[in-house]
């Protein structure tokens, strides 16, 4: 009897959590939409990504139940994110430090020349 009550309470709590999380996700979506129409310059992208990060966090923590998961599962989740960060940083460093030079096969309007006449397509 006591076990049934505990289970029922747990389910009611879970149901409430899901409902609130759903409402929060929809409100955050509308906030993201609204922020896109505000003139924030480069902060528009930051705002969009931060809100998306919060939404993804709600999905991962509450819906995917990372909050009650063990160390091994949390480690798997973090490992994926960590590997992506390595991809982002190393690719970003590569592109940030490499000079772009158009090749002959590219039409001029696809890529603005990085240097002077020496690098212009023949």
């Amino acid at each position: 009897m006591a076990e049934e009550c505990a289970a029922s309470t747990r389910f009611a709590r879970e149901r409430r959590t899901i409902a609130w999380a759903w409402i929060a996700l929809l409100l955050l979506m509308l906030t993201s939409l609204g922020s896109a129409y505000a003139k924030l310059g480069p902060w528009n992208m930051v705002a969009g990504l931060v809100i998306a990060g919060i939404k993804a966090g709600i999905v991962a923590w509450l819906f995917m139940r990372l909050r009650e998961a063990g160390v091994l599962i949390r480690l798997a989740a973090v490992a994926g994110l960590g590997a992506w960060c390595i991809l982002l940083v190393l690719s970003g460093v590569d592109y940030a430090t490499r000079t772009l030079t158009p090749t002959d096969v590219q039409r001029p309007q696809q890529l603005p020349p990085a240097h002077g006449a020496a690098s212009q397509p023949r």
Partner: protein
Amino acid sequence: MSSATLAHPSVDEKQEPGTGKLGMWVFLASELLFFGGLFVAYLYGRTHFPGGWAEASRRTDVLLGTVNTAVLLTSSAAVALAVACEEDAQARRWTARLLSLTAALGIVFLLLKCLEWHDEWREHLVPGPDFALHAAGAQQFFALYFLMTGLHGVHMICGIAALGLLARGRSRGRAWAGARELEVAALYWHFVDAVWIFLYPLLYLVDRHG
């Protein structure tokens, strides 16, 4: 080791998670890298072709994109509720219906997506010789747009098939449609939702105030 031990492990779930759940998380980590490469390509384009990216993003259908996002977020809540219902003896009868609802919302999402793609095809926004926009980077934006939403769509189809199958199996009391299988499928669905959560602002909300 006795067969009794094999049949009924006594360790705590937190210390030794089911192989299905851990396996799915490891798979999702690899999927994150699958989409992650495309996100890195997107970030490169956005930082190097801001004008083209903005002009192209303004041509996406923000209304359909927003509705689709709401549909997918609701489907994620539905499948989370299905998992919760499965764990409660009294609410278990709702599990199959919630799984069917999730799959149905997924189908709605794909139909709206097809509508969007059709409209973009008509407006010559598919990269090619007749591409409508001329700003540098605009074609690259739409190449990534179709690639990323197309890849996401393929993942949605797999998720819809899995959830539909589980809904059917659950309603018929099949052993292969149990709580463990449901939880693993739900994890996959939440991941597909999480990918769209990032696709939405990156594809639909660039420079909307311009």
